[in-house]
């Protein structure tokens, strides 16, 4: 069983796309928390401190949950 598990793990490594979505999800939760606590939009540095992660990494993760803005989609949702 250990061998099968290892096989599955080795053949199913975590892909960046999934990890970015996970971080983005946590970032959105963190944003809500900070909004409630401070009654204002958090800055990226405040988020970075709270999530213990570089600002730039959070920026990159947040991009993964943004729908690509295409010419034929309404920009205001």
């Amino acid at each position, binding site marked *: 069983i250990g061998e099968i598990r290892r096989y599955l793990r080795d053949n199913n490594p975590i892909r960046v796309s999934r990890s970015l979505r996970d971080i983005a999800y946590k970032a959105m939760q963190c*944003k809500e928390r900070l909004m409630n606590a401070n009654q204002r*939009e*958090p*800055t*990226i*540095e405040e*988020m970075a401190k709270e999530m213990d992660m570089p*600002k*730039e990494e959070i*920026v*990159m993760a*947040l*991009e993964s949950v*943004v729908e*690509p*803005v*295409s*010419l*034929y*989609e*309404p*920009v205001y949702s």
Partner: protein
Amino acid sequence: MKPLNEMKVQFSSRSVNESFARVAVAAFIAQLDPTLDELADVKTAVSEAVTNSIVHGYKNDIGVIYIDVKIYENGRITVAIRDRGCGIEDVRKAMEPMFTTSPGGERAGLGFTVMQSFMDKLRVRSRSGYGTTVIMEKTLSQRQDS
């Protein structure tokens, strides 16, 4: 005035690079500690300009898109996005809301309007046959350390 910090990035005009361009610009200006809303504004403006270079500037060709981001004192940034594509014949007309040379899209003709409203300033320089440069400026709120 000399910028405090600067970054330049260039990439081929493939649509897969649009989101890369957004992240590159946003990750660079993250050092100013903007709010998420401010980051989103800049990213949206960058998207519109980059999409224009891909779709209108280079049409179906693959060319190179150049972005230059400068950070000045007091949270002021400029973002210049340049292509060597077909250029714009009448810039003033192109910038009018709803003007488009490729109609059919849902929000066709609003790219420049979006850039203008999400950034503080917008300048467009273009020469037919030589390409287009869009220069946008915004002052990001500096956080009051209290």
